[in-house]
Every structure is written in C-alpha cells, then in structure tokens.
C-alpha cells in the first residue's frame, strides 16, 4: 500500500499526473460512445421490466422435488398466463407469472400448493397490480426531477453555476450508463433497481462534490497569477484529489459489492441483489464521470469567461517571452505565483 501512498504524494505535488483536462475530448468521445450505445440498447432491446411494473405475481416455494419444467406447466395451467420458473439455491422454486391480477393470485397460490405438494402457508407471494409499478416509476421520475433542480440550485450556491451544470450533465451521464447496462445485459428492472438508481443520484454527486471542492480551492485567486491557466489548475486539482476519489470510491464499492455477491449471489435475496447491482454499476460510472467528465466540463465552461481567456493569454504570453529569453517556461512568473497553485509542477510535465 505504501506504493499508493507514494503515488499520493507525487500526485499531490504534481510530480506525476494524468492530463485529464488536456485529453478531455478523448473522454468526451468515450462517454458519447457509451451514451449512444446505452440509448441504442434501450431503444432496441428495451428494458426487462420486472413483474412489479407489468403486474403479476412471484411465488417462492420451499424445497420441493417437483422439476422446473413440471412446475412451469402447473403454473401456466393454474393461472392461464406465461410463467417463468427458476430453481433457487435453497431447493425451492421461484415462479413468476406475469399479468396475473391480485384477486386471481390467491387461487393460483392455492393450486400451486396442491400441485407442488407444499403447504400454502409456506409459499411466499408477491402480488403486484399493474398500476403499482407505474406509481413507483412516476414517483421515481418526480423524485429525480425534484432532486436535480434542488441540487443544481444548491451547487450553484455552494460553488457556481458552471459546476452545477457540469455536475448535472455528469449525473445524467451516470444514469444513462446504468440504464444502458441494464438494457444490454438484460437484468430485470425492479423497484430495487429504481432504489439503487435513485441512490446513485446522491452518491455520484458525492464524488463530484469532493473533486469540485478541491477545484474551487485550487482556483481561488487564479486571476492574480500568470503561471497557470484555468485548465492546468483544474487538472492539478483532479490529480491532487485522485487518491481521495479512488479511496472513497473503493470504500463505497466494497460494501455494495458484498451486498451484490453475498446477499444476492449466495442467498438469492432478490431485493438486495437488485439494489446493489444498480448501485455497483452507478457508483463505478459516478467515479469515472466526476473525474473524466464533470471537471473537464467545468473547464470548458469556465474558459469561455473573459477573465479566464485573458488569463490564458497572459500565461501564454509570459511563457513565450520566457522562452525567448531562454528560460524554462516552468519558472516563468514564479515570483508572482500565489501559493495556491504553487504546490508543484504542472501536470503536463510527465
């Protein structure tokens, strides 16, 4: 781990660094590609909506000797609708019947109990009316909208509007990727997924906020120096907070990963699986976007400002004249360098 510690020190001083900002168009391209893929995937294959959104029933039986094939036939005969049957780790069966209304489901449950030779009281039933999922989805959309508006207002106050806009774009980007993964892989979308998706809201921004906070601090008094342009300062900020970003993301992903692989994988607790899967995808996307998308976007927005344009001009002019004098551009303007940006060298160096 001390390797990472050293890296942290070097990143902090700007001895090493990746030119996130300079190569931003590469990453914009990558993101646009991913986004297009996600949109196409959703458009073509659509999302595999769980019965919670279509209406239907999921029965979970205790251990039974009846085969999946047999159970499916029984279920389809009892309900008159299509059924999907899965074997569970516990030896029981998970029988999913779509478009079964809640009133008819009780009868089906009783019939299944007889067919599968299990006690009706031992069968779990999850019955969902068709409008329930619509409800959840509608409320999720409302929640999403309300949250976005509030968070943009908040970030605009706490930071500035450019950062708020960039954070919002990064957020939409994360959600798109997550939804796209669901469409591509064909994971089932359940209320658990929606919960996970909505949680990404908070989490993706948490990460972005940590990076922006560093950027805000690093770019304070930026116009009082002529050593670095805004994009260079931004890049240094990203590199400076990189260790923090990596650590917070790893630490966030560890419990979620445990949920995903233990809760879901081994014990087949559906809800745990659903929430943690979307969280896992969303968190990873969130970490990526706050570094590769959100901050570069801020730079793009910021460098349109006249003050920043002027700064860039001054910096370049200074470097040109320093070069003309045969000095290293790195040393140019050092006497004016404010402490904020004087923590080391430009990230470009390596």
């Amino acid at each position: 781990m001390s390797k990472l510690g050293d890296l942290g020190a070097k990143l902090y001083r700007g001895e090493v660094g990746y030119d996130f900002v300079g190569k931003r168009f590469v990453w914009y391209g990558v993101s646009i590609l991913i986004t297009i893929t996600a949109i196409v995937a959703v458009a073509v294959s659509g999302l595999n909506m769980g019965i919670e959104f279509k209406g239907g029933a999921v029965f979970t039986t205790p251990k039974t000797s009846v085969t999946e094939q047999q159970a499916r036939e029984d279920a389809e005969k009892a309900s008159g609708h299509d059924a999907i049957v899965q074997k569970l780790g516990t030896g029981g069966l998970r029988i999913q019947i779509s478009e079964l209304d809640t009133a008819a489901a009780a009868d089906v449950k009783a019939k299944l109990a007889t067919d599968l030779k299990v006690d009706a009281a031992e069968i779990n039933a999850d019955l969902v009316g068709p409008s329930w999922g619509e409800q959840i989805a509608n409320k999720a959309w409302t929640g999403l909208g309300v949250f976005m508006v509030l968070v943009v207002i908040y970030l605009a106050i706490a930071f500035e509007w450019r950062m708020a806009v960039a954070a919002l774009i990064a957020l939409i980007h994360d959600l798109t990727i997550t939804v796209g993964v669901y469409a591509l892989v064909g994971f089932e979308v359940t209320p658990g997924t929606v919960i996970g998706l909505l949680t990404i809201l908070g989490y993706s921004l948490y990460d972005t906020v940590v990076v922006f906070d560093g950027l805000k601090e690093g770019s304070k008094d930026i116009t009082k120096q002529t050593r670095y342009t805004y994009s260079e300062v931004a890049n240094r900020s990203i590199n400076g907070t990189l260790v923090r970003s990596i650590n917070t993301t790893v630490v966030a992903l560890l419990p979620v990963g445990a949920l995903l692989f233990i809760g879901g994988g081994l014990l087949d607790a559906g809800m745990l699986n659903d929430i943690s899967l979307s969280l896992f995808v969303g968190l990873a996307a969130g970490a990526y976007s706050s570094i590769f998308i959100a901050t570069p976007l801020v730079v793009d927005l910021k460098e349109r400002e006249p003050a920043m344009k002027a700064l860039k001009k001054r910096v370049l002019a200074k470097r040109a004249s320093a070069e003309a004098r045969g000095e290293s551009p790195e040393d140019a303007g050092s006497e004016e360098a404010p402490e904020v940006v004087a923590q080391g060298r430009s990230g470009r160096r390596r």
Partner: protein
Amino acid sequence: MAAPKKGRRPTGAQGRPGRSLAIILIAMVALTAGMFLSKQTTPRLGIDLAGGTSITLKAKSEPGKPDAINETNMNTAVGIIERRVNGLGVSEAEVQTQGRDHIIVNIPKGTNEQQAREQVGTTAQLYFRPVLAVTEGAPAPPEASQSGSPSAAPSGSGSPSASAATPSSSATSQGRAVSEALKAPNAPSPSPSASESKKADDKATPSTSPSATSADQAAAAALQAKFAALDCTDEAQRAAVSKNIKPEDPTLACGKRGDAWYKWVLGPAQVDGKDVKDAKGQIDQQRGIWIVTMQFTDKGADKFAKITGELAAKQSPQNQFAIVLDGQVISDPSVSQALTGGNAEISGSFDQKSAMDLGNMLSYGALPLSFQEDSVTTVTAALGGEQLKAGLIAGAIGLALVVIYLLAYYRGLAFVAIISLIVSGILTYTIMVLLGKGIGFALNLPAVCGAIVAIGITADSFIVYFERIRDEIREGRTLRPAVERAWPRARRTILVSDFVSFLAAAVLFIVTVGKVQGFAFTLGLTTLLDVVVVFLFTKPVMTLLARTNFFASGHPWSGLDPKRLGAKPPLRRSRRTGSGASAATVSVPVDAKEA
C-alpha cells in the same frame, strides 16, 4: 460553507476535544439506556424480514371528485380499515397512510391472511337498519339514573351522528327504557324530541314510546338479555358485537353520540350501502345549517321509501333508522314521513366536518374513498429470516472489507476510522430501535441495504479528513497543526457532500412510497449521524491523538509517517494569510525518496 479562517487556528471544538467526546458519550449512553428502558433491544422488523402480509392500497380518484383524495379522507379510511382488520382478532396489524394516496396494511404472521385481505379491500359494509331500542352504552345500573340531556350532546368529531338532535328514548331511566322499548310498546316515554327529521321537516315531533311489531318483539326478546349486559364503553365488547353480523338478522350495535357510547337493538338491514348513489354534506342556504343529502339508486329508492313509510308511523325511538358502518352506528336519524323519489336529507346539528364525513361514508359505502389493491406481499417467517441473515452477512462482510482496506492503507489511523464507525453503528442501531417504538419505524430489507451502503458514506468522510491531514503533513507540518489546519477544509467538503446525500435521501423519502422510503430513511439518518460522528468524535479524537507520541512522531505504523508521505522539509516561512493549500515557496526541492 466554511470560510477560510483568519486566525492561526480555526475556532471550534478543537481546543476542547474532551467536551465533544463527553457529549457523544452521553448521547450514546442515553440512547442505549433508553433502549433498555423501553424493553426493546432489537429494531422492529418489517414484514419482508419478519414474515407476514403487506397490502398496499391505492385510493382511486373518482371522476368528478378531484378533491376526494385528501388527508382527512385518507385518515378516515385508515381508521375504518384498522377497525376492520383488528376486528378480525389480528394483533398488532398496522395500517398507515403512505404518500398522498396509498394505505399500507401490515399484518404480522400467524393471522388469517385470506380473511384479512377480504376485509381490507371490501367497501360496502354499510346498512340502514330500523332502530328497535337505544340506550346509553354501559350496562344498565341497578339504580335508574336519569340519562342527562342528550340534546346537549355535542355532535362529535369522527362520529357524525345527528344524535344531538335525536334524544330519542333515553330521557327515561335507562334500564326501564330498554324494557319499555322492547316489551311495553305503549308506555309513554317523555322523550323531548326528534328534531332531526327528513325532507326539511325539522319541526320537533313529540313522541311516545314506540310500538313494536311482533316480529320485532320476538327478535328483541332474544336479544334483550345480551343487550342489557352489553357494555359499549368496553372496546373488546364493541369489537365482538359487530362481528359476523348477517344483514338479514336483527342485531345489537354500538355507536357514539357526541362523546358518549350508546347501544342499540336493530332490526334487519333494509337498505345497504350499495343502494346509495351519492351523498354529500352541504350547507342548506335557506336555513344556514349543514345537512347531508342522499340520492338513492332506483332500487334503493324503493327500499328506502318502504322503510321510511314503515318507520314514520312509529313512535320514537322506533321511528328511527340507524346507519350502521361495519357494525357500528354512525347516525340514527328519525323519520316523520315516507320518503319517496330517491332523495333524502338528514338534518340535525351537523357542523361542516361531521356533515362532510357522513356524506362521504354514505357515498362510498363504507370507506370515504374507493381503493384498489396495488400489491400484496406474503412472506413466510422462514424466508424473511433468511433474507435478514443474508443482509446481515453482507453487511458484516462489507464492513470487514472496508476495515481491511482502511487498515492496509491508513494503518494506525484506521483505528480512528473503525472506532468512529462503531460509534456511528451504535447510534444508528439504538435510534432505529427507539424509532421502532416511537414512530413505528420498521426495518425492512431496503433499509438494511441503506444501512450497509451508509458504511461507505461514513467511511468516505474519514478518508476526506485523513487525506487532508496527510496533505498538510506533506507540506512539512507536524501533526498537531496539520490536524487543526486540515479540519476546516475537510469539514467543508464533508458538509457539502453529506448535504447532497441527505438531499437525495430526503427527496426520495418525500416523493416515494413503500420500500423505497425505508431505504431513503436509513440513508438520511446515517448521513446525519455521519456528520455528528465526524464532528463530535473523529475530529476530537484526532486532536487528542495528535498529542500522543505514537502519532505525533509519525511512527511508521501510524499512517502519518512524514517520510512515507513524502513530506517536504519544514517550512522556511510560516504560512501567509488567507488562502488555501499553502506551500509558501515554489522552488522547493522535490523530495526524492522512493520517487
């Protein structure tokens, strides 16, 4: 957020770490003690973890009644459903509104789900029955007591009975009133009035005691003993009396007039809730009083005409009919003439609320709204337990992974984080337990998920702070100033990002329903506690540890070893005023160690 501080050191808890630690220690002890005092040491578990049935009902908006779904109606519906479900002998069934238009009914394991489901969803349990006798709710005392002045009874909340204007028979001594009503139809009863009347006929009708038909008498005789013994002020007896009543049989019923319980002997149901086409409470412009108007279906109008025709010929109290909702009398207006034509009006001393309430109950059969089943979840205790186990195992493993990572990366510093996580865990657990008792918070699977995800959020804030401290050490500071200088900046980052998390949780909690809410609640709670723990525990502990030799000297295992962190040599100058990450000099030689 926290402005850059002007002084050498930020103000705050930093000078008095002991006090902050004392506060959080007291909080922990108080919460734990509260938990044990409330004799509840585990969180209440939701249906999905404990087993049971959960039914989600959604209020349907009826065309032409856009405002019907409101808080008052939802609460009335909750009350009615609660009475029904608990009337089945279900213990601890809980009925709550959720969001604007949902009602959640949670029925714990071991009850008759099938029956409960039928009861929860059905609407029309509303009947119009003729009144055979009425008296105050408690069993008749041996000494005949004057039953006060019923006409002064306030028209009470929630029971829109028009009884204030319907003193009926009870002006006589109770015990005798009953037997007179039942057996001695011609004995005069000095009942002052029945001023509640139909069809704008609000003149008082002085009444004598009713004449009962022989059929009524037979029924009454059978019921009389039970009637005398019935104590409507007793909840168990009320529940029992309204159970399993067949509409076609005479029955006993309880009900409230104003604040007092009364009991009735009632004849067979003549009209039921389905016969009411519409009803509403409205103000009578001419008289300036609140009334309830009813409109019957064609079939209902015939039935109603018949019963009012019969009743009008009788004497008080048998000229009354009782409107019985789920076995409980909600109103017992008297009738002075046959009401044909399918329209009727109940007047009495209604206020706006009681008139509206009665109108609603009449028009929707029983519930003030109609509902549809949105979801029904039945979980066996076995599966619930397994899911809880899965959640706990996942949480434990997640926690262990985080601890290992922190130890590997932060070494000694990780213990601060781990103990902070434990403090946070104790606070979360005790608060959850107490909330279960206090506001009925139930830990469900998504809530467990939220708690596990929160481990990450909580650990994040430590990382933000630790990285800040390490940055300060890299600047060449010794630990004590580093801990203090890192704090204001870390604090700002932590507050901003926790605020965003909390905002997400709050929005989720407010706009969503059901399972999502449990998740949002836990997430919000743990985010708040994160702030509390970082401010009152982690920071003060760091201040104290900075005084210990182990950490201050930058022991290799402390996680704060300046060499390992690649610290610069000590600063040549002290910091300048006013700005952020300050390395005062530019041309600092690069520390080459292991570079």
